[in-house]
């Protein structure tokens, strides 16, 4: 398998590659959603799947998100592995009843008689000058719900490996794709069906002075900040959380034990965002190690402004650098 030629892929192409791979390998995998078949998805994530696998396995649904989620639950209860697409995360809210009340509970409710091996994919996040409701990042809503997994990839290779695991996982996974970096850059992806582990953080860059925790598109600003600070001799450890629920605090705690300082970055609104859970666990478990207050650099508690003012909301590399410098300057 590993003799396969590595391919240069964008993040959205990696989504497509993983879907096609798993559909070939496992015929119980089916894809459904709005515009996913003939049109191949508005971002082309499902391009070509209908031609290869036919309309019984790649389904254009009517325009109804509650339906998409609920139908996926029904399919999954019978042993299929549906991968449903919500066209934009801003339209996922109508699907929440089925996600919270059923997808997340089918196994528990039936004490294991039935289960819900489904994946709900949605492009998420801002920064692409889209119309209203096309830039949401409300991952915290799902990270609070028992029974779910919430996964956010941040590179083509991790997207491929994590989406494979998400589809193979026997339980429901909310898979949020940072669309701002869908085509940011290409990376070598080997289509060898090798999955990456869920439920663990990825330490993308080791460092000793401070721990920088983030996920999704912000990983790129985080790495840029780390690069620039390296030139000033500041060594930043960058952690890509990747799976927001369940949360791998071990990795984060070990890092903070080493560095004594932590900055958390996320695009979503600050209040009750996932950064709060990470900071809270640091307050519970890392008090002795913390040489400076934990800092969250997060979105404002406002809806994403229309795109003319979007940049006021988005988090920029300078802000991360400044936040790190403040945290290092402390005490």
């Amino acid at each position: 398998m590993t003799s396969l030629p590595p391919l240069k892929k964008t993040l959205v192409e990696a989504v497509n590659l993983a879907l096609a791979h798993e559909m070939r390998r496992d015929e119980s995998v089916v894809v459904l959603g709005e515009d996913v078949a003939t049109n191949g998805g508005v971002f082309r994530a499902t391009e070509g799947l209908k031609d290869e696998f036919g309309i019984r396995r790649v389904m254009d649904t009517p325009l109804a998100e509650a339906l998409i989620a609920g139908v996926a639950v029904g399919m999954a209860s019978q042993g299929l592995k549906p991968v449903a697409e919500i066209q934009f995360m801003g339209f996922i809210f109508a699907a929440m009843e089925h996600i919270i009340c059923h997808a997340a509970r089918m196994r528990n409710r039936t004490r294991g008689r039935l289960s819900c091996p489904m994946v709900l994919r949605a492009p998420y996040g801002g920064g692409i000058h889209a119309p209203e409701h096309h830039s949401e990042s409300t991952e915290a809503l799902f990270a609070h719900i028992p029974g779910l997994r919430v996964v956010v990839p941040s590179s083509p290779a991790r997207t491929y490996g994590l989406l494979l695991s998400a589809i193979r996982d026997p339980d429901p996974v909310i898979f949020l794709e940072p669309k701002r970096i869908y085509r940011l850059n290409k990376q070598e992806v080997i289509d060898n069906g090798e999955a990456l582990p869920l439920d663990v953080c990825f330490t993308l860059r080791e460092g000793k002075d401070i721990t920088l925790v983030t996920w999704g598109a912000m990983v790129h600003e985080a790495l840029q900040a780390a690069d620039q600070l390296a030139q000033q001799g500041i060594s930043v450890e960058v952690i890509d959380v990747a799976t927001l629920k369940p949360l791998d605090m071990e990795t984060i705690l070990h890092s903070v034990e080493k560095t004594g300082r932590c900055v958390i970055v996320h695009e979503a609104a600050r209040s009750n965002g996932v950064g709060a859970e990470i900071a809270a666990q640091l307050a519970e478990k890392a008090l002795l190690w913390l040489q400076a207050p934990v800092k969250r650099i997060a979105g404002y508690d406002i809806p994403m402004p229309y795109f003319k003012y979007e940049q006021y909301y988005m988090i920029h590399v300078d802000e991360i650098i400044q936040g790190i410098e403040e945290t290092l300057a402390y005490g």
Partner: protein
Amino acid sequence: MQATINNNPFSKTVAQFNIAYTQMINHLGEAVAHLDPDIANEKLLTDLYKSMVFIRLFDKKAVALQRTGKMGTYPSSLGQEAVGVGIGYAMNPNDVFAPYYRDHAALYLRGVSLADMLLYWGGDERGSLINGAPQFDLPNCVPIANQITHAAGIACAIKIRHEKNAVLTTCGDGATSRGDFYEAINLAGIWQLPMVVVVNNNQWAISVSRGIQTAAETIAQKAIAAGMPGEQVDGNDALAVYSVIKKALKKARAGKGPTLIEAITYRLGDHTTADDATRYRPPEALNKGWELEPIKRLQTFLHNNNFWGPEQERAWITQCEQNITQGVEAYLNTPDAPPEDIFDYLYAELPFAMEEQRQHLIAKARSLNANKKEEESL
């Protein structure tokens, strides 16, 4: 169809629809037309009758258990028995059932044990293990109408796998006001899914009467919005319910698409044991409901055809009560599940991040149960 509308020369009729109503045995116990003995045979009719009698007795017992603090809130199916038995006898074991919470009769006929039903309403998840019943039937669905969408998904699975069975789902009249109901039947229409939706129109959604739930003259006509057939049946006529459902399932299994069936019944009890219908329901309405109830009429029909008599009745009731007593015993004697069950079925494998919580629960449960024992021993 070029007919002009209210003689407006610019308008023509482009589509027409009819809604049919089926009844075989009326509330007086008379066949409304000649009954084909191949369908309406003694065996079937007595089976339908016996099951209705059984479930009404069970229902009474279940309410009593709740009243005496031995069980939780329970939705009686008093007056809804014909719908349940019609479903139960019309479905094949390999069909899939996506029920709602008032389907005790159908569950019983699907093979769900009385103990499991009582366990569920007694606040124990193990009631949904339904050992002995078809393993892929869905558990009870509390959020109204969600099961209809799940049923559409199940029907998709059947179609995707080229299987030859069908899914049957149920809901109440109130449930038809939810988006789920409409979104799901709309999909069933487009994809011609092997799916039968049975609406138990018992005229009430807790305190909200059918008349203020929708302005549609019939619930059946809601199928027109989905481009699929819809029909009404006398939901107090077990034979009619059985027949229309049987036909619809046959059609669905043959790949000829979905059907919406409105079974017209009357909720003779409170909404649940937590409800008091006298707050909102005039006694006259209830009395009229009793005149149409399903058991008496079939009993009359069976008597008049010499299919059934007082001795059979006595014998059957005795047997029912034995079975029910056994079921109740089994329920009451079921030992509690280990506390950690509340963690151990959430995921296929408990995430590492939750280990600590699980340990905490085990310790907590130990001390809680110790305290309980103490109190009891005092």
